[in-house]
C-alpha cells in the first residue's frame, strides 16, 4: 500500500498519451464539486496532476494525498471514531483492571439503574461496560492481524496469476477456486473448531479464509489492466516483468485493493463477532460477539444486553469503512480524476 502515493501519478503521466484529458471529461461537474468537501467529491487539483507535479516525485504527492485526506470530513469522522475505539482498547486495563468475565454486581441491572455500572450488568452480574472496553482490544487485534495475513497472500497470488496468465494462472486459479468455492464462513467455523478456539487460531483462520477474495480481485484487475495501452507502452519500452507488475499495473490496481483492505479489517471484526456469537470464540476473553450471544438468551426481557455490544461493533466497523473510503480518495488521484 505504501506504493500508492508515488506511483499512480507516474504511471498516469506515462499513460497520458493514450488516455488524454480526464479533467475535461467531467468538466461541467468539476465546478460543482468545488462546493462540497465530501467523500464522493475530489480535490479539483487532483484532476489536473501535470507532468511537473509528477516530476517532483514522492514528497509532493504524499503531501497532496495527506491534504486530501485531512480535508475529507467523512475520513476524519472515521479516524476520530477509530481513535476512540483504540483509546478504549488501550484504557481497558486502566479503567477496568479486574477480569471483565468476573461477577461484580447484581445480575440484570439496566443501564442507568446503578451508577456503579453505567451500562448495566448481564445475567451473571458481569459489568457490561468493562466487557465493551476489553472487547475492543480483541476486535482490533484480530481484525488487523487477520487482514495483514490475507493481504500478503492474496496480492502475491493474484498478481502472479493475473499478470503471467497461462499455466501459472491456471494453477493459482485452481488453488484460489478450491479455497473460494468452499463457503468462507463454514470453512472458518470448521478451521476454528478443529484448531480449538483461541485468539491466534481465530486470527489465522480468518486470514486463511479471506485471502482468496483479494487474490481474485487482484487477478481480475491485472487481467484487465495488462490489456491497456500504457502497459503495452511499458512493454515496448523494454521494462521487465517485475517493474511492470509493481510500478505499472499494481498502482493502477490499488484502488479496489485499498477499499478491500479497509473493508477486510472491518469484515474480520464482523467474522470474529459472528464466531463468538455462535460460541466459537476464545472462551478466556470477553468479545463483543460473545456478549451478544449471551444476551440473546434474554432478548425478550433485557434486550440492552444484545443492543449495546452490537452498537459498538457497528460503530467500529463504520469507522473503518469511513476511513477506508477517505484513504481511497486520497491515495488515488487517478480514480479521483476520473470521477
Amino acid at each position, binding site marked *: 500500500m505504501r506504493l500508492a502515493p508515488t506511483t499512480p501519478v507516474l504511471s498516469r503521466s506515462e499513460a497520458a498519451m493514450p488516455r488524454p484529458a480526464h479533467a475535461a471529461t467531467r468538466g461541467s461537474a468539476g465546478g460543482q464539486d468545488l462546493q462540497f468537501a465530501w467523500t464522493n467529491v475530489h480535490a479539483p487539483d487532483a484532476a489536473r496532476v501535470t507532468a511537473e507535479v509528477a516530476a517532483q516525485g514522492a514528497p509532493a504527492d504524499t503531501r497532496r494525498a495527506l491534504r486530501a485526506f485531512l480535508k475529507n470530513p467523512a475520513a476524519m469522522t472515521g479516524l476520530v471514531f477509530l481513535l476512540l475505539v483504540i483509546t478504549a482498547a488501550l484504557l481497558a486495563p486502566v479503567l477496568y483492571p479486574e477480569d471483565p468475565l468476573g461477577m461484580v454486581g447484581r445480575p440484570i441491572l439496566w443501564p442507568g439503574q446503578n451508577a456503579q455500572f453505567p451500562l448495566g450488568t448481564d445475567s451473571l452480574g458481569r459489568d457490561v461496560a468493562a466487557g465493551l472496553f476489553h472487547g475492543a482490544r480483541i476486535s482490533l487485534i484480530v481484525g488487523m492481524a487477520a487482514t495483514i495475513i490475507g493481504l500478503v497472500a492474496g496480492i502475491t497470488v493474484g498478481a502472479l496469476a493475473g499478470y503471467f496468465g497461462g499455466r501459472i494462472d491456471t494453477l493459482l*486459479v485452481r488453488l484460489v*477456486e478450491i479455497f473460494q468455492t468452499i463457503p468462507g464462513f463454514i470453512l472458518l467455523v470448521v478451521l476454528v473448531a478443529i484448531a480449538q478456539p483461541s485468539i491466534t487460531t481465530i486470527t489465522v483462520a480468518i486470514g486463511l479464509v479471506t485471502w482468496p477474495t483479494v487474490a481474485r480481485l487482484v487477478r481480475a484487475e491485472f487481467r484487465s489492466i495488462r*490489456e491497456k495501452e500504457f502497459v503495452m507502452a511499458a512493454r515496448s519500452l523494454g521494462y521487465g516483468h517485475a517493474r511492470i507488475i509493481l510500478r505499472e499495473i499494481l498502482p493502477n490496481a490499488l484502488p479496489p485493493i485499498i477499499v478491500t483492505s479497509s473493508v477486510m479489517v472491518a469484515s474480520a471484526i464482523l467474522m470474529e463477532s459472528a464466531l463468538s456469537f455462535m460460541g466459537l470464540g476464545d472462551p478466556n476473553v470477553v468479545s463483543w460477539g460473545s456478549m451478544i450471544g449471551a444476551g440473546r438468551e434474554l432478548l425478550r426481557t433485557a434486550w440492552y444486553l444484545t443492543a449495546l455490544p*452490537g452498537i459498538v*461493533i*457497528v460503530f467500529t*466497523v463504520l469507522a473503518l469503512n469511513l476511513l477506508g473510503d477517505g484513504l481511497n480518495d486520497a491515495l488515488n488521484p487517478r480514480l479521483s480524476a476520473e470521477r
Partner: protein
Amino acid sequence: MTKLSRLARVLRRTAIHAVPTMLGIVIFNFFLLHLAPGDAADVMAGEAGAATEETLAALRSRFGLDLPLLHQLLAYLANLAQLSLGFSPRYNMPVADLIVQRLPGTLMLMGSSLAFALVLGTVLGTLMSSYAGRWPDRILSVLSLLFYSIPSFWIGLMLIVLLSVKLGLLPSGGAETIGAGYTGIAALLDRARFMVLPALSLSLFYVAIYARLARAAMLEVRSQDYIRTAAAKGLSPFAITFRHALRNALIPVTTMAGMHLGGLMGGAVVVETVYSWPGLGRLAFEAVMGRDFTVLLGILLLSSLLVIVANVLVDLAQAWLDPRIEVR
C-alpha cells in the same frame, strides 16, 4: 468469432476447469476434517453416556472409521461416483437425504436475499452515480455504509425485538406456523411472512456492497471516451446510463455476485441460527458441533458445487458483457 461460439468456448473452458477443482475440494475437505480431534464414534459414545472399548471398536468398524485414511477416502470417492454422500451415524439416515431435506429452505433464503440485494443495490448504485456529490448520493452513501457495517446476526436480533417482540408484526423464528394446516396461497403467504426477517437480515450487507460497487463502476465507466462519444452524438442521459454505462459497470458487480454465493451460504449459517430456520446452514453448524464429518463433507461438497456453477455463469455473463475478455 460469433458471440455464440465465443460463449461456447468460455463454457467449455470453465467446465473443463471445474472438474479438477471439485476433486481438489473433496480431497482437501477430507483431509482437513480428519485433522479434527475425535470422530463420530467418540461423539456417539459420549452422547450415550458411556461406552466400552469394544463398543467403540464395533461402532468404528460399523461405519468404516477404523480403515486406513486412504481407504476411507477411496470409499468416499467410490460412494460419490454413485451419488451417495455416505451415512450419518448421528442422524441415522443417509446424508444425501438429510441435505435434500434441508436444501430448499436455504436455497429459498439465499435466492430471495441475493435477488433483493442485487436489484436494490444496482438501483441504488446507479442513482448514487447519477447524483454523484449531491445530496441523494450523500444520504445513500451514508445509508449503505451503515448497512455495510451491521452484523447480520445483530440486525436479525434487533429486528426480532422491534418487529416481533414489541410490535408483534412478524414471527421471530421457524419456517411456518406449526399445526395451522394452511394450503395453497395461504400456506405460501404464511411461509413468506416467516422469510421476511431472515432474508432481510441476510441481504442488507449485500445491498450495501452492490450499491457501492455499482456506484464506483458507473463513475469509472462514465469517464470513458465512448461515453463522451455517446453523449456527443446526442444520446439521452437515460440511454447512455442504461445502454452504454450500466452494461460495463455490471462487470464488477457480476464478478462479486458469483463470489458472494459462498458468502451468502456462510451468512445463512448465522442467520439460520438466529431465526431457527430449518436449512443447510444450521445443519452445517450442528454437524461441526457434533463432529459429524460425513454430513459436513456433504454440505461442503454441495455448496462447492453451487459456487462452481455460479462461477461458470458469471464467466459467461462477463464474456457476454465484454467481448474484449480474452478467450483461451
